């Protein structure tokens, strides 16, 4: 069985009398250590998939497993633990706590983890050794996203989920962040799932899952992913 496996995941939102299908029988697998990109236009349901993968949302029906555990059957409490120990999340808008320094933001996630990389070490790794004691407002967007990546990686997650991590960044910085993610995937054998609407970056992935209108349109394996540096968009 694959490391991550989605089987007929359906998510419906009820809005008054109308029922909206955000995901409609979505199925795909991702192997351990893969760099997977879910790509699709706005409203195609890719973020919903990511939220379900990250335990922030529960599917209306369908089964999905991560590392052999059936996450779709977890209750509230178990889902919190799942997020706490198994998932690293990276957002488009970083979602750092404004009142905490870079280092403290990282510590916020490590203080409750079972096994973790010390905040200083991970921050040094993402190149923020000198900005550790700065508050988010004193950091640039790229730096903030790097803090967010550090925060996600510090607790050694099974799965690193990125929701449009470059959406709020300029081209160069975005490229740098993608490079950092790709490097992490290769060096740490980290399974990375990245959601984007930008199909130009697909060549960097091991697996590309194309979504459209709440359905999986295509799953394509890329035997020779390109380094980010060579990709232009």
């Amino acid at each position, binding site marked *: 069985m694959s490391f991550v496996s989605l089987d007929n995941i359906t998510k419906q939102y009820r809005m008054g009398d109308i029922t909206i299908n955000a995901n409609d029988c979505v199925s795909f697998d991702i192997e351990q250590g893969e760099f997977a990109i879910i790509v699709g236009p706005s409203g195609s349901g890719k973020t919903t998939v990511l*939220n379900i993968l990250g335990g922030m949302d529960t599917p209306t029906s369908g089964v999905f497993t991560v590392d052999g555990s059936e996450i779709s059957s977890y209750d509230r409490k178990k889902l919190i633990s799942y997020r706490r120990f198994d998932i690293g999340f990276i957002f488009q808008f970083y979602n750092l706590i404004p009142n905490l320094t870079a280092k*403290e933001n990282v510590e916020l996630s490590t203080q409750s983890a079972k096994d973790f990389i010390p905040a200083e070490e991970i921050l040094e790794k993402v190149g923020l050794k000198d900005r550790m004691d700065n508050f988010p407002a*004193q950091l640039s967007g790229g730096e903030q996203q790097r803090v967010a990546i550090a925060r996600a990686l510090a607790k050694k997650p099974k799965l690193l989920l990125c929701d449009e991590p470059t959406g709020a960044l300029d081209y160069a910085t975005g490229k740098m962040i993608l490079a950092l993610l790709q490097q992490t995937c290769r060096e740490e054998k980290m399974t990375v799932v990245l959601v984007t609407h930008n199909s130009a970056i697909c060549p960097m992935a091991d697996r590309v899952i194309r979504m459209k209108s709440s359905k999986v349109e295509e799953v394509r394996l890329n035997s020779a992913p390109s380094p980010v540096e060579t990709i232009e968009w």
Partner: protein
Amino acid sequence: MKNAMLKNALVEIVRTKSRFISIFGILAIGCGFFAGLTVSENDMKLSSDTYFDNSRLMDFRLLSTYGFDEKDITALEESADDVHVYPAYYADCFLGENEGGDIVRLYSLDEPEKNNEYNTLLITDGRLPNSPDECLLDGSTLHSSYKIGDTLKLSGNDIEEDLTRTEYTIVGFYNSPMFIDDTGRGNTTIGSGAIDTTAYIPQENFTYEYYTTVYVTVDGLTPYNAYSDDYSDLRDEVKEILEKVGDERKVLRREEIVSEAEEELADGEKEYEEQKADAEKQLDDAKQELDDAKQQLDDGKKELEDNRKLLDDAKQQTQDGKKQLADSKKQLDDGKKELDDSRALLDDTKKQLDDAKQELDENLPKLQAAEKEINDSEKQLSDAKKQLDDGKKELDDNRRLLDDSAKQIADGERELAASKKQLDDSAKQLDDTEKQLNDAKKTLDGSKSELDAAKAQLDDTKAQLDSTKQLLDAGQAEIDNNRALIDLQVEQGLITEQQAQAMYAALNQKQQELDISKAQYEAGLQQYNAGYEQYSDGLEQYNKGYQDYLSGVKAFNAGKQLYEQGLAQYESGAKTLEDSRKQYEDGEKQYAEGLKQYNDSLKEYQSGLEKFNAGKKEYEDSLALYKEGEKQYNDGLKQYEDGERQYASALEQYNDGLKKYNDGVAEYEQGVKDYEDGEKAYSDGLKEYEEAKSKYDDGVAEYEKAKLEAEEKLSDAKAELDKARKEINDLAAPEWYIFDRTDNTGFSEYGQNAERIRNISLIFPLFFAMVAVLVCLTTMTRMVEEQRTQIGTLKALGYGSGAIMFKYMLYGLSAALIGSVFGIFVGMKIFPYIIMNAYGMMYELPQYLTPYDFGLMLLVVLAAFILAGVTVYFSCKNILREQPASLMRPKAPKSGKKILLERIGFIWKHLSFSRKVSMRNLFRYKRRMLMTVVGIAGCTALLLTGFGIYDSVSDILNKQFEEISLYNGMAICQDISSTGRRETTELLKEYDCDAEAVYQKQITVKSGKNSADANIYGVDSNETLKKYVDVRDRITGEKYDLGDDKVIINEKLASLLGGVKVGDSITLSLSDTESADAVIGAICENYAYHYVYISGALYQELFDETLPYNTFYFNTPYGDDAEEEWKDELAEKLMEIDGVAAVSFKTSVGDTFRQMIKSLQLIVVVLIVCAGILAFIVLYNLTNININERIREIATLKVLGFYDKEVSVYVFRETVLLTLLGTAVGLVLGRILLDFVVRTAEIDIVMFGRDVHLLSFIWSILLTLVFAVIVMLFMHRKLKYVNMVEALKSVE
């Protein structure tokens, strides 16, 4: 366009209900509280003024030292147009049949069956009187012991002169507008000085010549509130007019009185002169009559004296004769007695002699018989002696025989023992031998079996050897045969030599082997033979041993037979010996019996001998006695005959003397009769004389008395006339006193209380207004912040600032409008009602009016409006100034920064990670921090105030009645005699009460301009005071001693007197005329009423009299826990004593205060509810804002996998810290607020406790925390269901 905005605003309100409600709520509470408390003062005053107007409470009350006559009334009526004048009567007296009880003031009901037009009574029960002997009684709680139909008995103060009757039937109860308070009914000159209750009786019962009082009402004053300045200004004007009337009338009144008196005086003088002349003439006539009577009396007296002398002589003569007769009679009686004695003696002697003769004759034959008996006995005794000697001899022989047989038996025993020993030895020997034999047998048997075994072996060997021999022999034979065969074959030539040679060699080989075997066999045979020889020797030995054994057995059997014979012999010897011993013992027993018999007989013989000797001696003595008696008898007979002759001659002499005496007696009796007749005649004369004399003396006395009386009367009349003249000359003009309503303590206290409420109403709402502003500001600011983008959009769409602000204004102002109107409507009803109810326990008002004050309402709504408007304006101002573009962008998050605490490394380092975050957050939102602290502090302060007020008032009870007043009961006396005082002391002692007399009276104490009513408390010594009062300092607890040079007063009195201190001088006024200055020695703790403690010595020095004790204080043996029956019994007995007016126990005094505390509980509840609402609103609002503002942060935490509890703790830690801080601030604030409220609310006669109990602090803290926890629990639910996806979806 406007429509869209309006709709937007309305939708907003519905969407953010909780936010809208919190603004609404805080404004409702603030406005309601303010309006309610503010209007309370007016409502209180209005309620009472309405009552006063409806009942036409007098505006003025007039008193005059001479009373008022009709002319006075007319003058008053004419003084102004709208003045109504009501002349009336009143009188003070005691309730009950005895003076000294409670004091009642009687008022007049001016017209029958009708209520008075002024001070109209509110009949609470029953009806108006319709006959002159009916009355109405004060319906206050002062006298609940009476009921309708009871008879009201009055006494004292010459009430019989002032009233036509002193008993009235109670037909109803009333409340009077004059006395709206429960505490007093004014002062009087009688009794304890304080009026206890009032009553109304029909006017016709008063017999006064003039009206005692006049009530005035003024129509022009009615429209004004009695407590308003307008009222008092106009009232003062009217008062001036009335005073002017008074000034005129008092001069005129004096003149009237003087001229009337002068006329009367002249009449009096004329009458005096006439009566004087008349009296003198009457006296002279009487004198003449008396002198005549005196002459007649003297004559009669002389005649009587002559008769007396004659009678005395006759009396002497009779007395002499009587004496002589008595002497003779005595001589005769003596002689007669002597004769009777002799006769009796003679008769006795004769009888004795006859008795003796008879006795002698009886004794003679007895003596002769005794002689014969003695001789017989002597012979019997000698026979017995002989028999005894024979018995003795026989016994001795037996003894000897017995001793011999004893010796024989002992020898036999020794022999038997020896043979027994021998037998035992033999038996032992036999046993040994038997054992030896058995051993030998066993050895022999062992040898036999060994031998048999050896034999068997030998036989086996033999058999083997024999078989070997056979084999050997067979082998030899074979060899030999073979050899022979070979030889044969050789011979026959069947085989070659060579072949034969080889065959021979093989045979030789075999022969050789056979030879070796043969040699072995031989050796074996030899061995066998040697063994067999050994065996034969052994067998022989065994046989020999066996023979020995058999002979041993035989010898043993012979020995054993011998032993058994010996044993039989021994046993028969032993039996024989046993028989001999038995025989011996029988002999011994027989001997002992013989000996006992012998000894008994011997003893019998000896006693017989003794008896015989005694009998013999007796006989001889009797014989001698008989002879002597015979001689005496003969002598006596001779003497008796001589005596008989002497007696006869004496009897003749006596008879002659008796005849002479009887003649003398007859003579004497005649003399006595003559004398008694004379005496009777004399006494009759004397009586007649004395009657006449007495009559004369009376006449004289009467005359003297009449004369004196007449003189006295005349001089009195003269003096009176002089005095009257002087009085007329000195007569002062009457004095008029004009009182208005303010002189009524209930009226003015009520006004003061209303003003106190106003003071309180200023401070609480101020506080609420502050919180309201803070709540509005933070809420609106947050709302505007949240809708940044929307504002930007609207701006971009071209809406002006005004149009945008309209929405927020509408939101804020509608909340303010609805909130304030709602709050005011509720508050204006509820608060005045609660407050008036609380005061209702002290003031009797028929109804509570709580009308809406629309002016005030408008004012408050306007204030709320402005407040909300300004708040909204300031919240929007900044944001509206920004460009639409910048509004569309998210507001740069407030950047984090280091706080001061981080620079203090050692503290910061020790804080846990999440605590650091909380600390930073605290200082990040300073406005919210301030608001939380203020809100929570307010909550705690309100709670503490509520509990504190309760503590303060309950301290009056606890401290005053438990700690300070140590007495258990008191008996109040009125004009008690020293006997009554002694009886009281004894009765109390009988009930084991520790009692002392004390002087207690209500007096006025002054210092400078200040004055106050207080109780003087005079005691003989400091020790007495200590028994009943704990005189101590409130703060230090130091006990004060009462000295003989200074007084001690209580704390509240000192402050009422303008803050006098120890060492200051105060004036004590017992009455208007008696006052003195005293120095304060100490100021002590006291809560209810005021006291001036003074020693007897100081009182004597100041007022020049000893303490007029009028109260007994006592401590019961059960303390305050005495049973009701016991107390009733004691009280009843005390009341029976003349002069004891009232008995009360401390426990019942405290009840009044207990009731007061009950109504305060309501206020405490109101404060707690307000505090709770405040805490909820503030905390809910702030936490809500906090959560909304940080929703992304919270969602992020949830995404990071924070558990629900961790999220709540992360968010609430700040709230908890701020709550704790706020609580601490609130305790300080509350203490100050409480102090203010207590000082403001306190009434003059009591001092509230100043301490707040620890428990109240704890409760305040706990309740605040409970409120906070409830809000947090509520918010925890909200946090739990924050939708992460939604919150993180986008940045607006």
